[in-house]
């Protein structure tokens, strides 16, 4: 028995030793998978041999097939954006001289020319005498994060401008109203400007709020916005939207929707969808605007058409993005179509655009039938 026990003990110790390469291999694979999942790469520069080792994921971040990097310091530096190479080299030299660490943001250039942003953190390993042995670290591709930060900065800048414009006119109107040398009749005109611009500011703030509250990537729960969807008679919603802002004299609006067509939506928000689209058609399109609907299986397809000039080709890629198009003065906030897009998503539907023949615009909305 003791022999067996001893044998077992010996075997298990042997197993551990025999398993060590396998365990190491497993850990390496895990580390590679973790890098792949989290999109970060690791690197090491052996200072004695000047050999650089890159993980597979770091190759991928740089747009290279794993294992194909020429493993030298110079080859690595040449992968960075020409304007960032000196900074990357200086950070490495400083870290090595200080036996310390480095942290930097730099651009890399992939073989196909794509430029991406990297956040790189490095540390110098020293031997027992305190001499630098190797420089190693991790690098994270932060291109998407930078893009969304850039988007947010632009959005805030655009929002500030969009809010600032009516606010400035309101202040100017207030100055005219306060001026006793301005005739009463003229001050009434100033009052009109004040009312129009206040309304514009108010509408804009509602649209901005909706845009954030309806963002499907940012749960709207915290904003307290809940939308109860149910069947809504379509023709009613379109007529109400049209009545709320009647078409100008030179615009003819035709609504052709069967009375029994209902869509899955929220009644007030559905009205706003059409209010935005009709306003859009009147300002940018016209003179003939039509809304038609047809049922297709479980869906209702609605076309909002006008025979105006249509959306310029260069605006098509960003048509539903906030502040995508620069409009003329007083022609809306630049948020209408973005809000419509978000509302249609919230209804579980969709909106698309195409140029109408021979000219004009056609927005097509797809709803679930209610």
């Amino acid at each position, binding site marked *: 028995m003791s022999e067996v026990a001893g044998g077992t003990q010996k075997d298990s110790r042997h197993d551990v030793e025999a398993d060590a390469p396998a365990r190491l291999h497993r850990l390496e694979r895990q580390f590679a998978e973790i890098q792949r999942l989290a999109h970060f790469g690791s690197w090491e520069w052996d200072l004695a041999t000047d050999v650089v080792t890159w993980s597979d994921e770091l190759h991928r971040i740089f747009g290279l097939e794993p294992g194909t990097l020429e493993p030298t310091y110079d080859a690595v530096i040449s992968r960075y954006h020409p304007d960032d190479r000196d900074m990357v080299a200086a950070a490495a030299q400083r870290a090595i001289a200080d036996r310390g660490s480095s942290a930097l943001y730099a651009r890399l250039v992939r073989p196909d020319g794509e430029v991406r942003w990297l956040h790189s953190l490095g540390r110098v390993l020293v031997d027992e005498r305190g001499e630098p042995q190797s420089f190693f670290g991790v690098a994270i591709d932060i291109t998407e994060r930078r893009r969304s930060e850039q988007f947010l900065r632009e959005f805030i800048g655009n929002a500030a401008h969009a809010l600032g414009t009516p606010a400035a006119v309101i202040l100017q109107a207030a100055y005219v109203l306060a001026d006793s040398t301005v005739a009463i009749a003229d001050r009434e005109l100033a009052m009109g400007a004040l009312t129009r611009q206040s309304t514009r500011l108010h509408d804009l703030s509602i649209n901005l709020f909706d845009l954030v509250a309806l963002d499907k990537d940012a749960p709207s729960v915290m904003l307290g916005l809940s939308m109860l969807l149910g069947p809504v008679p379509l023709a009613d919603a379109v007529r109400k939207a049209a009545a709320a802002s009647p078409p100008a004299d030179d615009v003819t609006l035709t609504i052709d929707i069967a009375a029994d067509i209902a869509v899955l939506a929220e009644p007030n928000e559905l009205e706003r969808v059409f209010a935005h689209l009709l306003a859009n058609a009147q300002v940018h399109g016209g003179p003939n605007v039509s809304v038609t609907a047809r049922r297709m299986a479980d869906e209702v397809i609605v076309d909002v058409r006008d025979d105006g000039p249509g959306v310029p080709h260069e605006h098509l890629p960003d048509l539903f993005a906030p502040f995508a198009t620069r409009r003329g*003065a007083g022609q809306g906030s630049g948020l209408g179509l973005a809000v419509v897009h978000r509302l249609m998503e919230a209804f579980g539907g969709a909106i698309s655009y195409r140029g109408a023949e021979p000219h004009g615009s056609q927005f097509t909305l797809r709803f679930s039938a209610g």
Partner: protein
Amino acid sequence: MATILIVEDEEDLRLLLRLSLSSEPYTFLEAATGAEAAALWSNADLILLDLRLPDIDGLDLLRELGSSVAPIIALSGYSAEQLGPEAMEAGCVAYLRKPFTAAELLDTVRGALPAAS
């Protein structure tokens, strides 16, 4: 009677500028874009020029069309420190930061108009 060209993309702001100057018998021409302004540029005794237009930067427009036809007063939401020197260098005779009172505008316009007008 002087003719004033208002180059400003906000319709309500054009209205308020006219109202601010209503105590004087001026005639007004209005332009909402650089292109519209170009067509009227040489017909005015004085030009009120918004520096931010939808189709062109106001100062670029001024450099393109020249500052010699009439005195030009720059209007901008930016502070005089930010854009004032550039506007004056481009040939403007005065710089007003929005918003301004009717009296400020009137004084500036009176000061800039040639005495004969």
